[in-house]
């Protein structure tokens, strides 16, 4: 019996021990011990490395020196001791006598004061004068004595130093070399002490973020996250991979960890903390989806460093017009702009047959189109096409007919049109053959689709046919529009595509009228209006909003007949499958109206990432970083630039094409009032070129947005700009005119009228426009060094700054005293009133060049103009 109790007692004891142990040995403590071991190991390694460094010859040398110095000191111990004694005595006597000197000096100062006081108050001061003289003599005697004693003291000190200083120096050398080792040894002792089997001070490390409603204990295990130097440590101890960039601007004390990474912040076991447990709907975001969290605070931006995937997703959402059906904040209201064209005058533009092919599967007609494919029942495509083909516009045609009558069809027009298409950079937006962008519809086989009458009308005035189109007006002449039309209408396909041409086709058996009526109904119910404006039809489709999509519980989502192995039960997987194949969750009761966009995998993932930012549980306002006025202006500007594809021709913020001028520094360069009017109604700055800035028909909001954007990019004030107002003198203007003529500015620059019959290769912009267009400060900077503002420009500088000095041509030397700054200002001032010239200036020949006075840093003799070649 007692044996049984004995056994039970042992078992109970062991169970109690086990209970204590499991209570003590929590999972996180294992990580903390591991981290401490890691630190100890690393310190050990560092220490070893420091010691290895120390075993070099330098330390040996220092040690030998120390040994030698100590030996010498020991060998001469008697001399040293005597020296120490002597030094003590000498110091004592010196300090005593020196103090005496100080006292005498004080007494002298007092006597001098009294003496001066007596003199000032008009008394004779005989007595004090005598005292002063006496003290002066006494002081000089004492000074001499003290100086002598100081010498003796110094000698005694030197005697001791002779033995001490080599020892000190050697010790200092060794100390310097060993400092690292000692520091590491100390650190090792500390880290080893912390890495015991039962270490002290293991504790939960947490950030209690009341404002965010989060308590994050992640760093209890991820202990090295905020410690640089552990980049190569194994997980979970490594330094945060974005320590310097992201963590610096998002300190965990303020944002915690789970705000960005997801997971269950307060959990203290690995699985639970990473949130991959039941009933926790915010699991750890790994890989690309981590970017979804950026938009919690950085919403409203379209460019965000470090978040390329979610930004791409946002762009896709915008470009594909997802917001047409799924309206969310941050996108323009539908009335202002839809991604697709207004469905008007299609009967005058194309054939019913083409429309059928297009609507049935747009990608077979144009592989790069953004128009999605719908799932139609039989006969629906024909009905919609019939309705669209019934939309006609009789104003299309007369313009083309008139041009056709005047110009006829000449074979040369094709080449001419093709050349013009190249020069106007149509490929900047449209794909034409192998070249071009997919911003706007592909033109490769446009002849299959569009009638020449429509093309001509479109080229002449795009906004007349599509009031909201982004296609700009190139101010084409009738002839230009006609030759381009001839060329484009000739772009026709072969085989099956050839069948797309031709007139209206009759529906199989069904009368055209009922077909058209049915088509009209279908357009309303299929959701065409999300992307296309159609007059006289109201949208009938009800589309669920995407707000809070990321917060959806999987029980709110309909997974249809799919099995969990096919579609894992997460919001991510649901959305991914829905984008890829909208009908995937269809059942007898549910039919998805959403069309297929045929996105590639990277696009789907980007779009999904963006959609997963749509949460209603974002961070509170206080933790967000609101955009400054300047950032807002830049953001708006970028949006307009993107919408109108400005970078198809211009380089903006370093991105874009070089077909048109790089707009870097535009805010500093041109006057805002000029830019406003230019954007509203561009006038051709270089009329001798075929390329020209087209008229985009910007509204006031867009124009002011762009002007503010360029101002913001260059840090220029907006809307009230301030610039230097030139106030030239009569003399200054005359000097400016003289220099202007001397430098032959009009050899390239146009003044008003473009000269006729001359080659245009070297022509440069009209100088009569300077006063309207350019900022005075910019003109000065431009004149001084054009290469600095626009590297590679054809504009030369007339005041070359070579090897530390300015060179002014001799004829210009006498103007304004040859002062470069004054000359530049004078030319600028002249340009600011320049209206054109009447007669050709005479050339002023004169050889050789001398540096401008006052500018030369080193005076070199005037160079002979002619040398023998090597």
């Amino acid at each position, binding site marked *: 019996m007692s044996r049984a109790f004995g056994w039970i007692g042992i078992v109970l004891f062991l169970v109690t021990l086990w209970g204590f142990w499991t209570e003590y040995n929590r999972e996180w403590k294992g990580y903390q011990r591991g981290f401490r071991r890691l630190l100890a190991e690393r310190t050990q390694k560092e220490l070893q490395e420091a010691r290895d460094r120390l075993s070099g010859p330098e330390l040996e040398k220092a040690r030998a020196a120390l040994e030698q110095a100590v030996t010498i000191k020991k060998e001469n111990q008697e001399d040293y001791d005597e020296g120490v004694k002597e030094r003590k005595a000498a110091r004592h006597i010196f300090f005593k006598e020196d103090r005496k000197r100080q006292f005498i000096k004080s007494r002298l100062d007092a006597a001098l004061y009294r003496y001066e006081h007596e003199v000032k108050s008009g008394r004779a001061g005989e007595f004090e004068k005598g005292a002063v003289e006496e003290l002066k003599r006494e002081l000089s005697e004492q000074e001499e004595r003290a100086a002598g004693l100081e010498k003796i003291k110094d000698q005694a000190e030197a005697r001791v130093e002779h033995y001490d200083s080599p020892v000190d120096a050697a010790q200092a050398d060794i100390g310097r070399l060993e400092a690292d080792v000692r520091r590491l040894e100390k650190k090792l002792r500390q880290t080893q002490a912390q890495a015991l089997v039962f270490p002290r001070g293991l504790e939960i490390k947490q950030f209690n973020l009341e404002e965010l409603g989060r308590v994050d204990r992640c760093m209890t295990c991820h202990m090295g996250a905020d410690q640089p130097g552990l980049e190569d440590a194994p997980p979970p101890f490594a330094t945060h991979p974005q320590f310097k960039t992201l963590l610096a601007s998002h300190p965990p004390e303020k944002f915690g960890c789970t705000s960005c990474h997801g997971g269950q912040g307060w959990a203290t076991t690995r699985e639970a903390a990473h949130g991959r447990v039941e009933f926790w709907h915010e699991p750890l975001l790994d890989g690309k989806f981590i970017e979804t969290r950026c938009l919690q605070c950085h919403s409203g931006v379209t460019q965000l460093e470090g978040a390329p995937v979610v930004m791409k997703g946002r762009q896709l959402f915008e470009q594909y017009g997802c917001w047409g059906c799924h309206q969310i904040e941050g996108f323009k209201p539908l009335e202002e702009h839809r991604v697709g064209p207004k469905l008007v005058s299609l009967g005058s533009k194309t054939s019913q047959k083409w429309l059928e092919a297009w609507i049935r599967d747009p990608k077979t007609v144009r592989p790069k189109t953004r128009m999605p494919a719908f799932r139609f029942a039989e006969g629906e495509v024909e009905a919609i096409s019939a309705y669209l083909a019934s939309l006609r516009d009789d104003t299309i045609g007369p313009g083309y007919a008139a041009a056709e009558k005047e110009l006829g069809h000449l074979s040369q027009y094709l080449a001419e049109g093709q050349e013009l298409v190249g020069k106007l950079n149509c490929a900047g937006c449209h794909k034409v053959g192998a070249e071009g962008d997919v911003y706007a519809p592909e033109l490769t086989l446009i002849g299959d689709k569009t009638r020449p009458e429509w093309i001509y009308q479109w080229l002449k005035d795009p906004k007349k046919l599509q009031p909201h189109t982004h296609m700009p007006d190139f101010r084409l002449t009738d002839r230009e529009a006609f030759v381009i039309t001839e060329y484009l209408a000739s772009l026709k396909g072969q085989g099956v595509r050839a069948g797309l041409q031709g007139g209206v086709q009759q529906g199989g058996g069904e009368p055209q009228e009922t077909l058209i009526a049915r088509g009209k109904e279908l357009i309303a119910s299929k959701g065409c209006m999300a992307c296309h404006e159609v007059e006289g039809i109201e949208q009938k489709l009800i589309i669920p909003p995407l707000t809070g999509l990321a917060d959806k519980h999987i029980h709110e989502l309909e997974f249809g007949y799919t099995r969990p192995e096919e579609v894992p039960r997460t919001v991510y997987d649901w959305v991914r499958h829905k984008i890829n194949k909208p009908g995937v969750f269809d059942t007898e009761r549910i039919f998805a109206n959403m069309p297929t966009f045929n996105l590639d995998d990277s696009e789907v993932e980007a779009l999904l990432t963006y959609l997963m930012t749509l949460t209603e549980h974002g961070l509170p306002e206080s933790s967000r970083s609101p955009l400054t006025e300047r950032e807002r202006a830049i953001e708006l500007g970028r949006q307009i630039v993107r919408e109108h594809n400005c970078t198809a021709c211009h380089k903006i913020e370093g991105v874009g094409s070089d077909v048109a001028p790089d707009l870097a520094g535009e805010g500093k360069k041109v006057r805002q009032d000029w830019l406003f009017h230019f954007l509203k109604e561009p006038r051709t700055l270089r009329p001798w070129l075929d390329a020209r800035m087209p008229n985009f028909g910007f509204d006031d909001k867009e124009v002011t947005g762009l002007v503010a954007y360029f101002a913001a990019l260059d840090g220029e004030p907006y809307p009230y700009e301030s610039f230097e107002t030139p106030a030239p003198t009569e003399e200054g203007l005359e000097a400016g005119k003289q220099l202007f003529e*001397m*430098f*032959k500015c009009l*050899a*390239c620059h146009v003044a008003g009228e473009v000269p006729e019959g*001359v*080659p245009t*290769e*070297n022509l440069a912009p009209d100088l009569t426009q300077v006063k309207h267009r350019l900022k005075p400060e910019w003109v000065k900077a431009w004149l001084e060094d*054009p*290469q600095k503002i626009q*590297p*590679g*420009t*054809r*504009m*030369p*500088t*007339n005041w*070359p700054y*070579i*090897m530390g000095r300015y*060179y002014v*041509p*001799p*004829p210009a030397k006498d103007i304004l005293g040859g002062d470069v700054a004054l000359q530049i200002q004078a030319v600028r001032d002249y340009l600011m009133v320049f209206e054109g010239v009447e007669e050709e200036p005479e*050339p*002023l*020949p*004169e*050889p*050789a*060049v001398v540096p401008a006075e006052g500018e030369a840093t080193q005076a070199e003799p005037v*160079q002979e*103009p*002619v*040398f*023998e*070649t*090597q």
Partner: protein
Amino acid sequence: MRTHFAWMVTPFVLMAAVGCSEAKEVKSTETAVVAQATETPSAAPAAPAAAGHVTGKIMFSGTQPTLKKLDMAADPVCQGLHAGAVHSETVLVNANGTLKNVFVYVKKGLEGKTFPAASEKVKFDQHTCMYDPHVMGVRVGQPIEIVNSDTTLHNVHAMAKVNPEFNYGMPFEGMALPAQFDKPEIMVKVKCDVHPWMNAYIGVVEHPHFAVTGDDGSFDLGELAPGEYVIEAWHEYYAAQTQTITVPAAGEVVFTFAHTEGGA
């Protein structure tokens, strides 16, 4: 010893066509054509050269391309300076079948060596609305004097990629400006934006072993210490060619540029 060298300096030619950004119209077949041409002992046997003295010539094969006629109508001053038609200087073939304006230099083999600085001034002239010389070589840091000898405005626009680009207006006859390049660069293209037909090329090297072929197509790279060197021949229209030579074994170095088709 000398006779021994004489045997070794029998012409050996190694051709390598190296792609060059400036080169156009170079077909991949060219290498083969050239190689074939050089296997035949058409190049004259070299006279025994002094040990280490590297000389050679640039041969031209094929027919001289038709050169573009320059239209100087944009500037009456320029037009007035030429009685007849002026042609581009893109490909100039000499009477003896050699090629002019080829910049030949030691490309490899002189690394780490120092050379006395070049203080001799070289002239780069704008004359009759053309550049004189059309192709030239200078040392790093060597002073260049840019001169305008015309009564019209020129701008000298050196479109350097390695060195700083510059573009100076030179509105007067006789006006001169100093210039120099501080880094080696093959080649710096120079153009005049006022007169788009004007262009020239300047090769900038660190050492004095370079030459530009003239009316007889020959070049002299001077004395080189024994060793292996890579010699490059650069031409504005054809792809640059290189040969590896061993000094003192190398005799006369011969490059052949072949014209395949089209005008230049």
